């Protein structure tokens, strides 16, 4: 697990390309021959692309760099264990929807198409026959909430690498506690 945590985005994508087959057909955590606890290489690649549309890199890094895939992978083997099947079905359905619309898997279509597809999921307008086990809007709801958690939540859970989102919004990182703060009211900016 240490290994995947240290992989940067490029190394991760290379690993994804180098992988010959997607492992992990069972809906559970465990050794599956990938750097991940739960995800297959293809699933992780798809999720990383989703991450970078939900919270894209700009002058600050995006959600994939911040380790959000790792965050979700960890939680699926912990508190979110009951969502393993949902993620397996959901990520497969994202790729299937992408193939049906654009002829390629989600990670390979261009940004405009990715955004278009995610908006379609959000509004529940994706093809119902592809989304049988879980509805597209429900799965999008999980994705959105979990990606926000992984990006803006405490780094101890595997996301928010180096506390980057806290620094981005202007919070001190690491947070300093246990000191007595100045009790004098701060001047209002005029």
């Amino acid at each position, binding site marked *: 697990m240490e290994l995947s945590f240290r992989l940067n985005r490029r190394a991760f994508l290379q690993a994804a390309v180098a992988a010959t087959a997607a492992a992990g057909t069972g809906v559970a955590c465990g050794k599956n021959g990938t750097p991940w606890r739960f995800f297959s290489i293809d699933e992780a690649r798809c999720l990383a692309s989703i991450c970078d549309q939900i919270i*894209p890199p700009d002058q600050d890094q995006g959600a994939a760099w911040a380790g959000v895939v790792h965050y979700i992978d960890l939680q699926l083997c912990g*508190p979110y264990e009951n969502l393993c099947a949902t993620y397996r079905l959901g990520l497969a359905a994202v790729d299937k929807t992408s193939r049906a619309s654009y002829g390629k898997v989600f990670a390979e279509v261009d940004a405009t198409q990715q955004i278009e597809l995610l908006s379609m999921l959000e509004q529940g307008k994706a093809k119902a026959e592809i989304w049988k086990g879980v509805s597209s809007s429900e799965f999008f709801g999980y994705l959105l909430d979990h990606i926000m*958690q992984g990006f803006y939540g405490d780094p101890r859970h595997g996301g928010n690498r180096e506390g980057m*989102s806290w620094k981005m919004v202007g919070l001190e990182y690491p947070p300093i506690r246990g000191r007595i*703060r100045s009790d004098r*009211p*701060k001047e209002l900016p005029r």
Partner: protein
Amino acid sequence: MPLKHVNAVVVGSGAGGGVVAKELATRGLSVVLLERGKWYTPFDDRKDDLRNQRTCVLGNSFGPDDRNPRVYVDSSGHEYVVPSTHWAYSNNAACVGGGTLSYGAMAWRFMEDDFRLRTKYGQVDGSTLEDWPIAYSDLEPYYEKAEWEIGVSGDDSNNVFRAPRKRPLPMPPLSPNRDFQILEPAAKRLGLHPFHIPMLRNSVPYNGRGACMRCRWCVGYACEVSAKCGTQNTVIPQAIATGNCELRTECIAREVMTDDRGKVLGIAYYDSSGRLRKQTSDLVIVSCSAVESARLLLNSRSRVFPNGLGNRYDWVGRNLQGHSYTGAAGLFEQETYDDLGPGASVAICDFNHNNPGFVAGGLLANEFIKSPYQFAQLGGEGVPRWGAVHKEFMRHYFRRNMGVMGPMQEMPVFDSRVQVDPKVKDAWGIPVARISGHRHQNDLLGTNFMRAKAEAWLKEAGAIKTIPFRWMSLDTPSGGQHQAGTCRMGNDPQTSVVDKFCRVHDVDNLYVIDGSVHPNNGGFNPVLTIMAVAYYASDNLVKTWKGTHGRG
């Protein structure tokens, strides 16, 4: 070996039970205080924004854990077995101190009208609204006692709507943060009456503990310097120090034991090693908060009480209430974030009563400090929920926003209720709570009104945009951390569960003392009222107690 008989068993060590244990122990009664959770110290609490008592997406820090699920029945009759982190669970912390270990600690006295809503507003269709059998003046001395013994800081002298108080608060307010400096003058410009929120938090050293260090980890967390005043660091240590009170943690009450004549004998419970124990006592005081108190009474069935204790007229578990919160966030051009905890600092009570077109109302106050994850959920209403624009919104506005919100006083609904589930049992084999019901139309009218007032206040303060909070759903029952109402206090045994001294109507030596007894729950956080009622009921209990009932 049987356990030694005691005068009183108190089940639950939260705001109500902690106070009762101390009051009885200091007056010489022998007390066993049972708590289902552990006794945590602040050092057991990681400051984790995804796993705490407020934001529990990865779990909660102070329980209950997965061994006690509940059943939630939605408006179309579907049943769900829900864990304690699910919104429909109506979670309240399971630990010594109960909710008071990790709460935000607002310390409100209800207003005089809150005790006589039925008289003031008349009958409300679809609601069991009724006056309290006691008046504000009955509780006033006990509010004062709670403020001074447990410790409240603040200054409500500018609150012209407040109920009369004989003594000021024992501690001054914390110095104003930036929210206060911006919102207070804005409220005054609108002709409102802003003031410093009373808080169960040391602003100066008090009762042997230090002052608040203004950190950002407040509501949802245990206080690292123990400046937040709960029962776990005030009355419970005092109760134990008398030598008359024994606290037993990780003990799960199974039922209240009764004899053939309907007299309460004590409590059957599972101790921390899972062994069934029987603690006999002269008195039993149930203080498990609204969901669990009702569950314990309903699970205590016998030949004399086939429907559960106190439930002769099917009122136990009825009228489950909490608060419908509403308000808005305002976005500002200038920085508003100053990282001075707890954040909540300024409030108004201008809209608690006498509003047009609906019954009652609620306070409005600025929010506690938000974590970035909490702020990230603010999307909607003109702010995209994701993508490049949302990221820019986070980056730009996290330090340039303020929230104003408040609890709408809910109308009690007879069909919003706690039952025990016929099938699902907890890890100890005890039937779990089953929650169902809906809210009253009046709650919707009230929250719409209060939301508009919150937006107007933020706009006056200079907000360039406001994002309204629309959290209320009429289809779901209330409850949550402000849960109340399930063992109503009243004079008529046919329409209430306990009398005006919190004694169960048809059982001499059984009391319910917690938020369950509130006929209605105020437009305020209820904890100080729970404490005041506990002081009041304990006082009467001790005064009228004639020693061991028939045991010599």
